[in-house]
């Protein structure tokens, strides 16, 4: 892996060159939060941000998209060309890159691959950037505070400069195109990088013990904690909508009135929503809220470990931030482990 450095003051120039690789999306401030959007000027870009409201998932797997249109005269027409439009995601945190790597496993490396996801991911350059954890980040517990793949370039703050990790040949092309902005790092730069890395890891305020969690979940399948969660959860689905790795979707055919033309729409779904497990005939396999909220935890923290070797949670803290009733993954897991007594009381204590 090639490592270079770039003066912070030249980052605006570097970003000016990036459109050669696709439409640039970067973290911008919107209201009280941040979003990945197209900047109309450099000063819109926020390099120090906590987390975006929605993860980069929104660009790889849009909340609503037409996968193809159908017409009896013309047949099926896919939208792959549209999905192949090059993009550059600038300023992505390590846990969100991990999130994309997890989506890759599901959509690009599994038995049934998704051409739309693959087209977007393949044509999207990712430039990562490091971050200072807040009280909701759990990245160090989930081992997502550092990432070594899934990005083209990764920028790490070392004072006046960024250390630039080159992850792919496309990242190398970016370096070549903006070569004058990059220089060789020194031993002192590496020392500073290591010092800051250790300092950052030590600065995490939120922690979660992940070891043996799948086994604990197996043992606690009938725990009354899930009933308490069911009482508290509103089934709004916010946690899964903002999650970088929740990927459930629904498919609907929308046919034009009075014609046989139409389009197939894919839109985000959530296992928290009551209709998620509703099938023809009115049977709902997860009619109770407690069963839905339990399912989400089991899928992310246990099912995914069995299938892919790690939980699909990346510790971004978005679910904690988005939950309208302050359900917090830390207190849920601690309650399941018996370290807390009651979700409601612990949630109240943390709010």
């Amino acid at each position, binding site marked *: 892996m090639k490592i270079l450095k770039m003066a912070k003051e030249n980052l605006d120039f570097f970003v*000016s060159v990036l459109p050669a690789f696709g439409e640039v999306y970067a973290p911008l401030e919107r209201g009280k939060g941040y979003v990945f959007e197209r900047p109309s000027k450099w000063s819109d870009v926020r390099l120090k941000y906590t987390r975006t409201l929605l993860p980069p998932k929104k660009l790889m797997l849009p909340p609503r998209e037409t996968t193809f249109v159908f017409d009896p005269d013309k047949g099926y027409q896919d939208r792959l060309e549209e999905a192949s439009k090059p993009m550059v995601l600038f300023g992505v945190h390590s846990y969100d890159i991990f999130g994309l790597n997890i989506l890759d496993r599901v959509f690009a490396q599994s038995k049934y691959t998704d051409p739309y996801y693959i087209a977007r991911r393949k044509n999207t350059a990712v430039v990562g950037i490091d971050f200072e954890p807040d009280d909701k980040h759990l990245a160090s517990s989930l081992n997502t505070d550092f990432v070594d793949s899934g990005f083209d370039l990764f920028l790490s703050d070392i004072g006046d400069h960024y250390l630039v990790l080159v992850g792919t040949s496309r990242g190398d092309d970016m370096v070549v195109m903006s070569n004058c902005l990059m220089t060789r790092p020194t031993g002192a730069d590496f020392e500073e990088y290591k010092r800051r890395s250790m300092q950052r890891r030590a600065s995490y305020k939120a922690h979660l013990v992940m070891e043996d969690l799948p086994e604990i979940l197996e043992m606690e399948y009938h725990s009354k904690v899930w009933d308490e969660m069911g009482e508290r959860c509103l089934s709004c689905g916010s946690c899964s909508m903002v999650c970088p790795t929740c990927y459930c979707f629904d498919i609907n055919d929308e046919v034009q009135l009075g014609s046989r033309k139409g389009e197939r729409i894919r839109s985000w779904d959530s296992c928290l929503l009551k209709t998620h497990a509703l099938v023809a005939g009115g049977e709902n396999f997860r009619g109770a809220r407690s069963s839905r909220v339990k399912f989400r935890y089991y899928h992310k923290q246990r099912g995914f470990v069995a299938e892919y070797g790690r939980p699909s949670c990346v510790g971004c803290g978005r679910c904690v931030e988005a939950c309208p009733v302050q359900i917090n993954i830390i207190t849920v897991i601690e309650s399941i482990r018996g370290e807390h007594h009651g979700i409601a009381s612990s949630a109240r204590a943390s709010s």
Partner: protein
Amino acid sequence: MVKEMTEPKTVLMIDDDVDFVRAVRALLESAGFKVRAAGNGRDGLQLAKTLEPDLILLDVIMSERTEGFFVLQEMRRVPALANKPVIMLSSIYNDVPAFRVDPEAGWLPANLFLAKPVDPKRLLAEVTRLTTTAAAEGRQQ
């Protein structure tokens, strides 16, 4: 927007240097061009959308030192402006030594980059060439 063949070509200048705008305006108007101007990227983009000029002269360093680059990207996303000839005029390569990225390297979606100070004859020749080429391409479509 369809224009009569005899109608003077419109050039939009987006530049915060009032003196430079005045000088270029005089040069282009004397050659029969109609010139409109905006002093910053946001106003320039808005004017470009409504005016749909025949050519745009775009500065880089305005209220921000990369403002012109971002404005150009925005323009290329507007269908009516996606193929408009754009000449970037800037002193960035002289003023900011750190930035030595060759505009010919293919990253800049402008038709031409001219470093300030600009040779008036060269500028007039390029504006004439690009507006004529664009008009000819428009007629062929």
